């Protein structure tokens, strides 16, 4: 083979190698896709904030004085005098929830409700529990589906239009839940690049903005998602009512509730409009429960540990 022939052969070999390198499976660009971050349905990263309205149209915390109403008179107002129907939550940890192991109802609200059943019916078993979400509460009373509602329900003037309230049975407020090692000790010191999760009501966003206008609020329709977001590191804190936070803190030893309450919520038991005698009787039973230490025992059992503070003082006020 002469020189030219050799060069040609070398060329051909090189060309073959080059072709072989180029061929092979169709060269499709590797796709670029987002890092999957699980987010709950309806999460809002730029929620509207409106300041909490200071309710002055009425004196919401004043209920009916117990007077001399008997259990019998109270029972006469029930839809079924043999069985009281109580609207509760079965998804609010430590307040009203199903124990995942036993599927039984338990919690602070349930303790209060059970004490009321015992007082009104004289028998703790004569009760029908009606689980409901917070949006259903007033309608369920108006429809006569339940006789009363013990479900983290805040007393306010607007609701007084549709239902009767007992005196305050728990004084709640928005606080902050953070990771223990985050070093955050209160909402005020959170920075502009930190995110704080809360429920989808504009008032709770407003309360956060009033304390710390810098921090970024994030809202979710179901506040339980806030805990998951905090555990997944998507948000840096959760700012909801302390009762809810307690229920979250107790599920995760790496989290703690910090800072003082920066809003005020007064929980009351709600009754059908006009059932004032039932309200009076229950107010009496509530006062007894607070006086004889059962209330404190229930607080200690459910909330004292995770909240790491004593209870905020209750306001017991009667309008007549």
């Amino acid at each position, binding site marked *: 083979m002469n020189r030219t022939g050799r060069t040609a052969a070398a060329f051909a070999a090189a060309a073959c190698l080059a072709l072989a390198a180029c061929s092979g499976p169709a060269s499709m660009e590797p*796709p670029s896709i987002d890092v999957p971050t699980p987010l709950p349905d309806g999460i809002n990263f730029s929620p509207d904030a409106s300041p909490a309205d200071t309710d002055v149209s009425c004196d919401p915390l004043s209920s009916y004085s117990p007077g001399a109403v008997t259990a019998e008179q109270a029972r006469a107002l029930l839809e079924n005098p043999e069985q009281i129907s109580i609207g509760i939550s079965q*998804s609010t*940890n430590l307040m009203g929830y199903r124990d*995942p192991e036993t599927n039984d109802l338990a919690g602070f609200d349930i303790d209060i409700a059970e004490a009321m059943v015992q007082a009104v019916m004289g028998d703790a078993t004569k009760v029908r529990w009606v689980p409901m979400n917070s949006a259903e509460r007033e309608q369920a009373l108006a429809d006569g589906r339940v006789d009363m509602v013990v479900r983290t329900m805040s007393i306010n003037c607007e609701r007084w239009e549709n239902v009767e309230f007992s005196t305050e049975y728990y004084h709640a407020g928005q606080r902050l839940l953070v990771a223990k090692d985050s070093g955050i000790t209160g909402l005020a010191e959170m920075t502009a690049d930190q995110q704080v999760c809360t429920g989808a009501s504009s008032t709770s966003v407003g309360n956060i903005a009033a304390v710390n206008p810098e921090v970024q609020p994030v809202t979710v329709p179901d506040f339980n998602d806030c805990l*998951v977001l905090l555990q997944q590191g998507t948000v840096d804190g959760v700012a909801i009512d302390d009762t809810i936070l307690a229920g979250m803190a107790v599920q995760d030893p790496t989290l703690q509730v910090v800072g003082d309450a920066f809003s005020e919520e007064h929980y009351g038991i709600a009754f059908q409009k006009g059932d004032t005698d039932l309200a009076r009787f229950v107010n009496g039973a509530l006062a007894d429960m607070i006086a004889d230490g059962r209330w404190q025992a229930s607080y200690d059992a459910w909330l004292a540990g995770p909240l790491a503070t004593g209870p905020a003082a209750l306001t017991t006020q009667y309008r007549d």
Partner: protein
Amino acid sequence: MAVQSPPAPTQAPPAAGPPAPGAAPGRWTDRVAAALRQTPGQLRGVLVVLAVLILGAGVTGMTSILAKSAVIEETTSQSGRLSVAALQLYQALSQADATAASSYLTAGTPSEEMNETYRTALRDATVALATAAGEVKTAEDVELVAQLNARLPVYTGLVETARTFNRLGEPVGATYQEQASTLMRQEMLPSAHTLQENALAQLTESRDGAAAFPWAAAALVIAALGTLVWAQLWLTRKTNRTFNLGLVGATVLLVVFAGWLAMASLASAGHTNRSHEEGSGPLELLAQAEIAAQQARAEESLLLIARGEDDDAATRYAEHIEELTADGGLFDQLDAAFADDAGLGAKVDAARDAATAWSNGHGEVVKLAQEGNYTEAVALAVGDDEASLQTSFNGLNAALTEATETSADRFVDATLDAQRTLSGAAAGLAALSLAALICAAVGIQVRVAEYYA
């Protein structure tokens, strides 16, 4: 039949020499034109035209048949495999979600059967994903597969976190389970669905290709036959002899060729349509029904997991059941598809009965849950009891699975029939056209030779 004998001299005097003598040496077109004025040249010209037409018909006929087999091969393999994988993926993901949600309700201790179903569904999903990854051909599909691949481990992570918290008795497990289902419902199932639709679109495209009649080959065969007949008439006029054995042979061979081509094409189109109507069409419907049932089951469990806080789950449950049982819904469509098949019809009826029992029971579960009898509601929904919804749901699933198996067998049978019809056709057509070409060449060459004898 008259046999070749020396031709009577015709009006055209025999040419003196092989290269057309009258032609002045010059441009080749002039030489060809000159040659065509002489009979041998004319004969050669006819032979060239015949050769082009016969070879053309042979090649196009053969390639169209080969293309058809390739398409049939494809419907059972390539995009066929992709659409099957996409469908299996969609089914497996729905089943994984339904099982994960149901087993969450069993308070931390899912039955061995449920665990097994969940693990099997995940295995099916990953195998289907791997198969799909090897079959995808468009950038969009590649992205869909990658998205599903990226999300599946996130999904399983959420499910396992939910299970762990549930075992520990922490209610946040429910939120993890809901988040897992949200990821599945909002991102993964839609991706799987799009992948499946893309695969089906590709399949339909190739199926239309397979069912198309090979018009080009048919036109060429007719042209070749026409030319052959004309050539024989022309030769008869020129030579006073009725038959040219070579050309007659070529004609017969081409007629057989045309018949075989038409038969194979029509039969394979028929088989392809049959495999679509009796096989893949009902298969898709059955898969849709299964998916709707799985999704409804997942929503039913979510409804209970959310403990009354998720009204959307109730709406979505109702939508999936509606999809199945509404007028003109999936069951009605399946009944129509299996109208003349009692066996499959009976299975659809069984599925419909199970679905009815299930949706009646669902009302009871919702009622129990609303009345606060949560434990009874859960027991009715996921218990092992004969009357539990788990039983009706399993019955529904079993009926749909059996119908799917029968339908899948039909699909494979029809595809095999189609392939059998085509097998040999390509080689046969090629051989026939070659034989026809040789006959024609011999027939004409014999005549041409006579001029130089």
